[in-house]
């Protein structure tokens, strides 16, 4: 009997979830920019996954007879190298396509590391309060006292310049934002009746934290995840540009820009295209993030 009731409730909840998702989607679609951003982002993901299929050449193959070829619409360019070649004869389009993999990979790793560590710390701080809270929040204040890019640079100087270390550094720099958001959300939920009810029933602390409270704090975290995905790509590119991120010949967009710097007045295309790729990707994710915020933030929802 009890089981049947429970099943019924579960069904109702499933339906509720679907309805919720539908509502979310309709709000998301109201923001045309967000839909465009999402479509563009999906396109980038597809290109990155099937990079070997889409790229006309190998990213690191040097064509000795084609140094600094301009893009195809300019005099001297050809469709063999649609966006031209760089100073050592590598096809720029193929490098950009393979570079998409790195950027998305960086975004995913940084967001998952920063999110999971930040959420756990934020949950602990908001749930237990008191001394633990003070210690965690002071630590986060210390990290936030430094300009993010500078701290990331210094961390990479300690760890040694490489893509992995750049990702670790960026994740460390970003997680205070997750801690603050989670803590604030948890503190908002703590006094609500359903939490008290769960406490009274005798739900264990871990379950209370992760199963009861956390799902209700997700909205701001999802928005933050989208924003920090784009920041991670930007920061990693900046580190690559400064020579402290992915190392040549990796076709990472920021690293490509660093290699192209000396040719800016001779060959505009080596500089222009990698930057365009960074800008468009980051822009698409930020447009998506704006849509997510509008759809998830109840305060702004109907204004």
């Amino acid at each position: 009997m009890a089981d049947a009731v429970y099943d019924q409730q579960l069904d109702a909840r499933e339906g509720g979830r679907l309805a919720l998702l539908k509502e979310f989607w309709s709000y998301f679609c109201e923001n045309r920019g967000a839909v465009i951003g999402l479509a563009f982002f999906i396109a980038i993901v597809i290109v990155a996954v099937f990079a070997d299929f889409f790229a006309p050449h190998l990213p690191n193959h040097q064509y000795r007879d084609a140094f600094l070829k301009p893009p195809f619409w300019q005099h001297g360019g050809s469709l063999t190298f649609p966006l031209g070649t760089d100073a050592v004869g590598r096809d720029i389009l193929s490098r950009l396509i393979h570079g998409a993999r790195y950027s998305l990979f960086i975004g995913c790793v940084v967001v998952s590391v920063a999110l999971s560590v930040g959420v756990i710390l934020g949950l602990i701080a908001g749930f237990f309060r008191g001394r633990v809270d003070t210690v965690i929040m002071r630590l986060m204040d210390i990290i936030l006292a430094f300009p993010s890019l500078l701290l990331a640079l210094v961390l990479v100087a300690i760890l040694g310049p490489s893509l992995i270390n750049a990702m670790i550094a960026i994740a460390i720099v970003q997680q205070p934002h997750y801690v603050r958001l989670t803590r604030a959300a948890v503190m908002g939920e703590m006094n609500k009746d359903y939490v008290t009810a769960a406490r009274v029933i005798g739900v264990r602390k871990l379950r209370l934290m992760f199963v009861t409270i956390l799902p209700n704090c997700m909205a701001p975290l999802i928005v933050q995840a989208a924003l920090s995905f784009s920041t991670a790509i930007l920061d990693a590119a900046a580190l690559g540009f400064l020579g402290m991120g992915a190392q040549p010949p990796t076709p990472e967009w920021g690293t490509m820009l660093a290699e192209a710097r000396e040719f800016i007045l001779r060959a505009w295309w080596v500089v222009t295209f990698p930057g365009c790729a960074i800008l468009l990707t980051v822009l698409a994710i930020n447009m998506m993030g704006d849509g997510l915020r509008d759809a998830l933030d109840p305060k702004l929802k109907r204004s």
Partner: protein
Amino acid sequence: MLTFILKKIGVIIPTFLGVTLIAFTFIRLLPGDPVLLLAGERGMSEERHARMMAEFGFDKPIIVQYGTYLNNLLHGDFGTSIVTKQPVLEEFATLFPATMELSLCAILFAVIVGLPAGMIAAVRRGSPFDHTVMASALTGYSMPIFWWGLLLIILFSGILGWTPVSGRISLMYFFEPVTGFMLIDSLLSGQPGAFVSAVKHLILPTIVLGTIPLAVIARQTRSAMLEVLGEDYIRTARAKGLSPSRVIGLHALRNAMIPVITVIGLQVGVLFAGAILTETIFSWPGIGKWMVDSIFRRDYTSVQGGLLLIAAIIMVVNLVVDLLYGLINPRIRHTE
């Protein structure tokens, strides 16, 4: 008000101690022997190594080392550069005005353009102007500024030849720095053309560094303005028959300014991060370029000192913004 100030300062002191701890551990976390790193030598004799250990104080317990470090900081000793053998604080002080000048110009540019743009966008909500401003702001916000700088160099220096590529002033002019601000010094020098040259050198870096703050300020002004325009007292002011420019310029703007001022204050950290990239691109002799160069030259004492000084500046600015905010808005002051 006094308790408010004291409370704010009370929070800042432990954070600052934490920052010193990070700067202190930084050198000890670096891979390799710290003595070799700090002496900038390789293959030192055993005996000399021991002597240097004692000189840098590495032979003492770590707590004592930290105590000595804090004590030195209190006496204004931020260490000595491994490469130039100059006191770090002195180097920082000579380079800081360059970064300060650039940052001030950038934030001024961002406010002068961003504030009216956000305001007009809010007043004409849904108009093509609004859409253009919001699209540009989002693009600016997503901009990899190191690339943006290179693009501007290609266009304005390469193709049009209007602006110089790097530095603060043409090498033709030379004068002793008085204030450290090139715009003021060039005027004071009285040399014809010096001021124009300084301005030309400043334009592109200002635009590059100001782009992200500009985008943030425009977005924030628009949303703050929209919120205020929906309030009852605005409707009342309109109903009283006040002119639209008076309602918007006086009543709405004043209240919309509060969140905007906070956002402007928060841009200090962003400006420092941006200065690292902007100064590197334009060979601007400021703190940002110095930090990057120091990292590459393995001048770790300079990195350590710079890290601490920059964090201290940001903390002080944030404190001032907090206090100003409390001064403008009594509601903040009296909560908790």
